[in-house]
């Protein structure tokens, strides 16, 4: 209950090194993905605008139309904002579709807001990032209004450039 990403892997990729806990006053930016409405309608709309045999083929939506379709309900928006405000988190920005909230907060506040989280700093090739070494949770009454919180677990994705030189020399 309250663990939005119960199956999220929290292992540290081999090429990143943990340096230590971040200072409680350090600023973080977290992304709250609010639960959207009408995802089934969105999926069906995508099917008909992409199917060359459909009369709707190529009749794409404007961003505003997408926003009116998927925008989180007022209840969801209010629940998430009230929860953030109750922890003093007010420095947030949203997007056209209002289904993401990006908020600035300190590590100390983030760890209270998201029980279980422990923010650590990691290094790779001189590049530093902050992630939580443990799973986070949210209160039950907020969980139904959120899909996930970004900025806690996922390390930067890998590029798909193959190192074939090694294979080549092996073959040789």
């Amino acid at each position, binding site marked *: 209950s309250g663990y939005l990403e119960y199956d999220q892997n929290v292992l540290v990729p081999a090429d990143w090194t943990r340096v230590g806990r971040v200072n409680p006053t350090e600023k973080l930016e977290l992304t709250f993905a609010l639960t959207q409405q009408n995802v089934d309608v969105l999926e069906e709309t995508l099917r008909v605008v992409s199917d060359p045999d459909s009369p709707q083929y190529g009749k*794409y939506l404007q961003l505003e139309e997408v926003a009116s379709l998927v925008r989180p309900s007022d209840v969801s928006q209010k629940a998430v904002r009230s929860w953030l405000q109750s922890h003093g988190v007010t420095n947030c920005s949203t997007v056209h579709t209002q289904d993401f909230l990006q908020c600035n907060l300190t590590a100390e506040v983030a760890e209270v807001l998201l029980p279980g989280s422990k923010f650590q700093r990691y290094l790779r090739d001189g590049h530093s990032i902050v992630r939580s070494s443990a799973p986070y949770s949210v209160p039950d009454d907020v969980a139904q209004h959120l899909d996930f919180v970004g900025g806690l677990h996922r390390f930067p994705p890998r590029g798909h450039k193959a190192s074939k030189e090694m294979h080549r020399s092996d073959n040789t």
Partner: protein
Amino acid sequence: FHLGVTPSVLRARYNMTAADVGSAQNNSQAVAQFLEQYYSPADLAEFMSLYGGSFQHLSKVDRVVGTQGTGKAGLEASLDVEYIMSTGASIPTWVFTNPGRHESQEPFLRWVVLLSNMSDLPWVHTISYGDDEDSLSTAYMQRINTEFMKAGVRGLSLLFASGDSGAGCWHMTKEQNSFRPSFPASSPYVTTVGGTSFKNPFKVTYEVTDYISGGGFSNVFKMPDYQASAVAGYLKTVAATLPPKSYFNVSGRAYPDMAALSDNYWVVVNRVPVPWVSGTSASTPVVGGMFALINDKRLMKGLPVLGFLNPRLYKLKGQALFDVTEGCHLACLDEQVQGQGFCSAPAWDPVTGWGTPNYPELLTALLAP
């Protein structure tokens, strides 16, 4: 005879003529970079002066969204920009760069959020990054998948590299291995691009499987209707030689959808031409540039852009594509599969999809309303 893949080699192989360049007013294409990957305008100019002599092209990026770092250019970013601008020649190109302004930002998520907040975007986006599905939460992947739907209903085409580990390998338990799908390549709402090599690496010959080409079946997303019959055809054709069923989820979204050359590219990075660059990072912008060019011709005819490509691509049933039927890709090095994943076969397969583009035929097929 050639010493590696350059724009002229690609254009020759895929039957692109000097006239196949963009000219529409309202067309553009984009690549996205994450974390400390920058392209260099000087490298791009040098690349085009070395390799762009046979076709009209642009030598400058039209717009950078985000802040480019000041360090050395990255091979990944250079490859993407140089090659999307070689097939998508003369089409204005955007670079989304996501260096991670705050240490807690997720660069890929930041790009996804940006898409939801910009009303005017390029029609084609290529992304050469991915993670193992098992390293990500289901909630995250499902939501990102919905974000791809949001992009698709707006007419955007998103192309992702299929990965460079073949079918991959996941040591589920000490005793049991399985293949390891990659996300976002495994999303049913993006077009995933695999990789091929020339049969003769020094000639413009037919193509065979590049053994690194990522492909397989998602463990998270079910198979979408648009590909059900193509995949069923493959499974029937190669039934006797398929890997054991315990290695893959036969009812999952199967990828890639198509492919292009991914082996032995020349890239200019930090002013030096570098040979032997390989990976589906190379094939993805090549295919993206071609679809941007087809959008260009559609826009000139007053037609809507192609948007989410797969439903239409699968209806072609391989028409206008060079079918790749030789070779297999990598997988677990164990007794059961001995390093081999899936093998290519006539029509669609989970190594090279429907095959590689025959540009003029693809253009003809996709220029119909």
